[in-house]
């Protein structure tokens, strides 16, 4: 007869950088059910639109989450630009694309490090984070900030990258690509990593579809959907295909994210080759009136920005749906029937971002 017990997990836990609480119902070592309770990071920043005008709100939107801060800012700005019929200059679009892809690389490297840390591979964690610092240095060179940049504004961007800087960056990306190849070998071929990730937490294509998973979590289950194909910023002019895997276990999620880093480096190279000269921002006149629904692809998946404006400088409503929120049902599904020791890895493989989810 097995013993049933409830183990509280979080909100403060060594493997979690952010607070989320799960009550894990166990039968011996096997997880029967996971009951989440959230709200530890809720700030209520959507309501701040009533106090900050639509230009100022860009700074708040960036601070929805510090990891994909650039994309949050861009998603919000694009929504407002669409309402106001502002045409963003092509150079600004390309710059946005480059910064987006740099964010994706930095986020995925951060995730790889945290994953390695979750299964106790300390040196791999340190190596991933060492590489990530190079991206942050480039961010600092081009925008002035390491995690929060404030380069987006309604109508375009604030800072430029000159030719010299782009050439330097491409050199750094060559280095990163070489180093990443070495790291990839460890992540995908090491015996210890394989034994912790293979066949753990399988999410089938059908389940991923039914539970509405997004991003790499969904793509690793075999659904080829990528919002970058919707054609915002300069993505329509770049050549890429969504990266998928058919297996759907933790190993596949790791594999997909690593291949996405290589894809992002490729996209940056394409963008740097095609970037046109020109203005950085279009003039914005008047106040927005109307509503728009903007979808962007973040490192963690699809993020949705709904903006409703009433013709004054204060917006009526901003609503953000973040990828982690969409991935939580999938995560809870994979937790059922897993071993207690695998719980941290399973939570990490959706790349949870709690501060986005709870805002």
């Amino acid at each position, binding site marked *: 007869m097995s013993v049933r017990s409830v183990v509280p997990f979080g909100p403060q836990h060594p493997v979690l950088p952010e607070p989320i609480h799960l009550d894990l119902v166990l039968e011996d070592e096997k997880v029967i059910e996971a009951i989440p309770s959230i709200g530890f990071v809720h700030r209520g*920043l959507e309501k701040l639109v009533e106090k900050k005008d639509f230009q100022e709100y860009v700074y708040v939107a960036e601070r929805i989450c*510090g990891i994909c801060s650039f994309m949050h800012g861009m998603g919000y700005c694009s929504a407002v630009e669409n309402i106001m019929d502002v045409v963003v200059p092509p150079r600004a679009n390309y710059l946005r694309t480059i910064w987006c892809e740099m964010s994706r690389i930095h986020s995925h490297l951060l995730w790889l490090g945290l994953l390695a840390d979750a299964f106790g591979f300390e040196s791999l964690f340190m190596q991933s984070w060492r590489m990530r610092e190079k991206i942050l240095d480039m961010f600092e060179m081009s925008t002035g900030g*390491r995690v929060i940049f404030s380069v987006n504004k309604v109508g375009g961007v604030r800072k430029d990258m000159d030719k010299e800087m782009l050439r330097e960056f491409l050199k750094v990306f060559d280095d990163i690509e070489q180093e990443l190849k070495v790291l990839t070998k460890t992540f995908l071929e090491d015996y210890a990593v394989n034994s912790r990730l293979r066949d753990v937490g399988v999410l089938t294509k059908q389940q991923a579809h039914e539970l509405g998973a997004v991003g790499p979590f969904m793509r690793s289950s075999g659904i080829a959907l990528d919002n970058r194909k919707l054609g915002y910023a300069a993505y329509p002019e770049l050549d890429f295909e969504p990266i998928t895997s058919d297996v759907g276990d933790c190993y596949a999620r790791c594999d997909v994210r690593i291949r996405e880093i290589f894809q992002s480096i490729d996209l940056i190279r394409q963008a740097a080759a095609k970037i046109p000269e020109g203005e950085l921002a279009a003039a914005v006149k008047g106040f927005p009136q109307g509503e728009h629904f903007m979808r962007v692809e973040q490192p963690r998946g699809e993020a949705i920005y709904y903006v409703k404006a009433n013709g004054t400088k204060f917006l009526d409503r901003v609503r953000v749906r973040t990828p982690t929120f969409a991935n939580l049902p999938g995560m809870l599904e994979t937790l059922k029937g897993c071993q207690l020791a695998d719980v941290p890895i399973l939570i990490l493989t959706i790349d949870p971002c709690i501060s986005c989810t709870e805002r």
Partner: protein
Amino acid sequence: MKVSKSPWLMHYDGSSCNGCDIEVLACLTPVYDVERFGVMNTGNPKHADIFLITGGINAQNAPVVKQLYSQMPNPKVVVAVGVCACNGGIFKECYNILGGVDTVLPVDIYVPGCAARPEAIIDGVVRAVALLDEKKKALSQEQVSSKEA
């Protein structure tokens, strides 16, 4: 500065945007690497000397923060990292933010910045170590005088 022991720190994310969190982690990883000074990150409040908190306080996490603080052994130092932890920052006007960390805990050191830079965080930790030594001395003197009495 002479440090009498390796300080261990515990980090808790109050309601920050993650920016300061990842900068705290960046302090512990290569390039900044405070581990070379013996500073270790621990998840267990009972092992921790320094309590780093990022982000403001809301109704949901106030009891968590208080409990973590009460589980830490004396002497202990609280460091508020980032402008949100100092006074609420950009989220000050949000309906669910009670304020900075000092609304629920006695904060010893305030690290400014949005997001706080790793250099600033390390500076905060170094000051926390000095303060920890002072508090330790005061504590042992207190114990001596209470024994004599």
